[in-house]
């Protein structure tokens, strides 16, 4: 791990000097602000039991769908396409160092973007003067959920990017994987074969991969260890496969 921090610094610098970073930031904050404002308007129209944070985090999947491909599709695919991967891998860096530095740079940026949405809640807190609207519980739970699930989504993006030299393919693959992880598993849950036998292994597994359910649980303060285990193990598997894909160079893509 000698070169990890050299590589990470390089990745972060690349992020900071790239215009795409700032465009993604503006888009993300614009969209999230728009959603938040819409939420507040609906709160004004009819009063609800829950705080705005609960509804805010129930829409977590929307930015995931466009952020995780955008942040990761460039990382390894672009290096492969330009050929800089060859100059990189012929120095004494290892593939885990390369994959992890790309992963942590993208994940750090993902987290920074999400944390900047804290300002929405701060604005609300400052001006609403209604303590009922600000409930720290759902906020903390929501951000913990976003941080944990983000690990998996970003790892899926890094893995897709390691497979191909085309950014477009990498991005689409990430989008498809995020789609399967979120909506796909929820769809499976609706199938009758998984409902008929409540205790069968199949239905237990399907029960455990309900990401929307996790989001709800975290926001309402139920932190079940099974969810972090799922996200961390998926992240580990995906990153490991990305390292393997990076090492498999004899078959040239």
């Amino acid at each position, binding site marked *: 791990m000698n*070169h990890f921090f050299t590589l990470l610094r390089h990745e972060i610098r690349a992020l900071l000097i790239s215009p795409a970073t700032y465009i993604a930031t503006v888009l993300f904050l614009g969209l999230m602000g728009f959603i938040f404002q819409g939420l507040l308007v609906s709160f004004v129209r009819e009063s609800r039991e829950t705080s705005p944070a609960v509804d805010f985090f129930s829409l977590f999947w929307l930015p995931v769908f466009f952020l995780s491909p955008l942040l990761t599709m460039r990382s390894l695919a672009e290096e492969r396409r330009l050929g800089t991967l060859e100059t990189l891998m012929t120095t004494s860096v290892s593939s885990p160092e390369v994959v992890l530095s790309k992963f942590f740079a993208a994940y750090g940026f993902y987290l920074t973007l999400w944390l900047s949405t804290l300002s929405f809640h701060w604005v609300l807190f400052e001006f609403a003067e209604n303590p009922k609207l600000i409930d720290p519980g759902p906020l903390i739970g929501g951000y913990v959920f976003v941080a944990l699930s983000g690990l998996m989504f970003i790892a899926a993006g890094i893995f897709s990017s390691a497979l191909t030299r085309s950014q477009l393919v990498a991005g689409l693959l990430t989008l498809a994987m995020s789609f399967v992880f979120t909506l796909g598993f929820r769809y499976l849950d609706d199938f009758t074969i998984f409902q008929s036998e409540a205790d069968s292994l199949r239905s237990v597994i399907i029960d455990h991969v309900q990401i929307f359910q996790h989001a709800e649980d975290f926001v309402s303060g139920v932190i079940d260890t099974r969810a972090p285990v799922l996200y961390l193990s998926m992240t580990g598997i995906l990153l490991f496969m990305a390292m393997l894909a990076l090492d498999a160079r004899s078959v040239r893509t």
Partner: protein
Amino acid sequence: MTTNGTTIEVENLYKRFGRVEAVNNISFEVRRGEIIGFLGPNGAGKSTTMRILTGYVPATKGVVRICGHSVAGEPAQVKRRLGYMPENNPLPEDLRVREYLRWRGRLKEIHGRHLRERVETVLEQCDLNRSRNRIIGKLSKGYRQRVGVADAILAEPEVIIMDEPTIGLDPHQILMIRDLIASLRGRMSVIISSHILPEIEMTCDRVIIINQGRIVASGTPSQLRKEFLLRTSYDLEVKGDIREVQMALASLTPKQQIEHSLDRPDKDGFYGVTVQLRSDRHYGEDILSAVNANPRLRIRAVRRREASLEEVFLAATRRSWEIVSPMSEPVPTVRRREAAERVEIPAPALAPEPQAIQPDRTP
């Protein structure tokens, strides 16, 4: 391990991509401080061989040792001793030259003051001082190429491998890179591949010609010339009857060939004549006295012309195409004879000398 002697050892290297044999039983050695030129037509396996040497692509079979360390077994040791510039010289577009070199230096485990000194030195050596703060994506091809070379020599590696370092450069830039490579002679082992043959000839101590994944020739340019095209050409400018010229020269050696380069004499009545002699002896004096012996002939100029590496290259690769028959079975003598005949590019009429028909180094 890193004592004098060989720095690169390649033994029976094979690389297969699916059903294609990209590298087929290549073996060679490079001594410390030697500059080796890798030649071969496109798709001959040059880049693949170089990639295997760097450890970027694993070999299907065979052993590569860099400074005594096996590429497959101790990749980290090998990578520390290696400077590599890949084909097309990939560089990140959005960094500045100095930033890029500093980053590469850190990856190559140079730190602190030494790093600063090394970066300054290579910027100086590669004449990049004035563009040190420019963004790489905005540099012209020649500058980018120099950045690639600067990166390859940055960590003062014992072995430098450059895949077509002068491709797409203008003559001034080629000269600069050639001088730079020549300045590494004696200190580092360098392998360069190139299509520009005169350049290889000028820079390299030894040439290895590869075709279809095999080594078809290796040695110094003059050795290769002897092996593949044992002949020297003389360009004469003679006034008089061409047939008389032929008769006068017939006495020199039985095996020769005469061509006119000009069908009609120039305004002073001189013909351009090219004589090819199958020997590497100097014949200038003999030619002069033979022509002068005939009072009706007048000679104005004699120029000796050695076969260029280009001709050697064409001959060597053509011969290997003939020899690598579909089944790579032992080639019958008659075929080899034909093959050797075709070696004579402009001289189809000549019978080849027996020693010129050396079989290829096929396994």
